[in-house]
């Protein structure tokens, strides 16, 4: 039987394209912005979390910054550190508040003893 390689290639291309898109995550816009921790981190400084719309982000505490990347997955903000850790932030109040799980163990919720709450101070990024 003759095979139309063009059609076959198109179908496979679409499958792979779909898989790639599927892996890209959701729109970051609703959560882009600058957040500040509700309580002081380490007892003396607030933490600033800057989520830029291009997927880059900065964690700043006591004047020192650490870069990371972030995506939105299933309505939650996933922060990827350079060292391979993943921190998951659960948004509430329409994205104005982020509860960040600091265990790095991918808890779907936010364990009370390792949860840092942030409030948005500026939208966009």
């Amino acid at each position, binding site marked *: *039987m003759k*095979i139309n*390689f063009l059609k076959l290639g198109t179908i*496979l291309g679409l*499958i*792979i394209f779909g*898989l*790639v898109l*599927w*892996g890209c995550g959701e729109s970051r816009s609703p959560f882009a912005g600058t957040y500040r921790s509700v309580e002081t*981190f*380490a*007892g*003396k*400084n607030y933490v600033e979390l800057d989520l830029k719309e291009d997927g880059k982000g900065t*964690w700043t*505490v*006591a004047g*020192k910054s*650490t870069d990371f*990347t972030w995506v939105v*997955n299933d309505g939650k903000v*996933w922060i*990827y*550190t*350079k*060292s*391979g*850790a*993943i*921190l998951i932030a659960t948004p509430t109040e329409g994205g104005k508040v982020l509860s960040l799980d*600091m*265990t*790095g*163990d*991918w*808890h*779907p919720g936010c364990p009370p003893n*390792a949860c840092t709450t942030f409030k948005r101070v500026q939208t966009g990024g």
Partner: protein
Amino acid sequence: MEDKRKPPSAEETGGLKLCELGQEVVISAGSRVVSQGETPEFFYVIQSGRLRVFRETADGIQTNLTELGAGAYFGEVALVTGQPRSASVEALTEARLIKVSQVEFDRLLDQNPKLARHIINQLATWLVTGDSRLEKEVVHQVKLRQISWFDYALMIGLSIALGLVFNIYNDNKIPLIYGWGEKDNIPEISLQQAREDYQKNQAIFVDARKSAFYDQKHIKGTFFNLPLILTDMMYPMFQFTLEQTPGAKDKTIIVYGGSFSRRFDVELARFLKNKGLEKVAVLKDYSGWENAFPLEEKPPKEAASISLGLAGLLEWLPLSIFVLILIPPIRRSPYLSAACRLLLGVIFIAFALSKILRPAVFALNTVDYGMMPAWGVNLWALALPWAELVVGLFLVLGIRTRAAATLIGAMEVTFIIGLVWAILHHLPINCGCVGEVGEPVNWLKVLKNTGALVMTIQIFLYDRFFVLDRGGFILRDRKI
């Protein structure tokens, strides 16, 4: 194949006309005239219509032999040989046939040497072309079943090369080996000395492992759990706690938590030194702390995990193989092989894509199992996702499928060993199979992977459709 068979002329039949001998019958489209294996009774000459001649295996796989049209004949082979019918004939359109009985056919042959010679000539031609076809098919099958070392070298080499090259340009690149070439100036302290310091309260202990491991078991009275992977973010808290604890700054900081797969302790100690802390040391016997110090332990609990989404749903399908292999015709079906290839291919491609961009995450997942030597972790984390992608694509596209199935089988065996190891050692981890998310490590996960392993065996043994082999693309069976 063009049919070359023409009905014997009146001259060839010695003046006897077939239409005078036989009986005219009309066959509706789709009806079967003769069936493979039945005892022969008639010889047929086609007056009008088209018929299909085919063979059929017990599994229901049909091989089309030829199509016959007006003027052609069939059924003579079984009458001459006295054997059961060698093929089946089915009407493709309504057909009008002359049906000649065995007795009439024998009388025709007895009285007409020319007709007999014509049929012998025809049978001999079939024999010769049949041999040629058989040889061609055998060669094709041999090529199809061949596996060469080149196939494995191609897939493994391609995966390693792609992994290494991609890592150069990846924003989230990782070193090939952690700590490679770094000057190691971290003092080591013996277990005995550390124990004395512990008892005299002259040292503080810092655990460098992930919090799940720390929660499960740690040295009683550990000062701080500072997971290496979160040091950038959590160091200010550690520093603050250190400053707020009287006398802590003057004590030796003993970092522990290294493993066979990664020396978290050494890396964290190095980080603390770089931050200006002078009195930092690691344990000489990095894994000996569990037996040398009093411990705080909690019963093992299932690690946090997140659903794998679509890939996780697809992962249930391999379980069906345990039912399908119980049905012999399905077990051997090449269509099942094709379905297995598509399923495994899509799962592996999806899993690979989720890991390729962030090798550091997958490297940490690998470290969690504690089975891979430290020097191999990052190489594994760089190459394996690409290997999954390459073999997944090869399976879907039908390229070197047996070799691809072997490699996926080998991966599945590795995953199963890892999962069983994690279960038996109560490791607080999830499977780490899809990059950033993971399913719980449990026996169900082992069963899913075993199903996938059985699928690879089925592919290895029976795959032959929709493949691009050395002889070209085969959509289904070849027409002969």
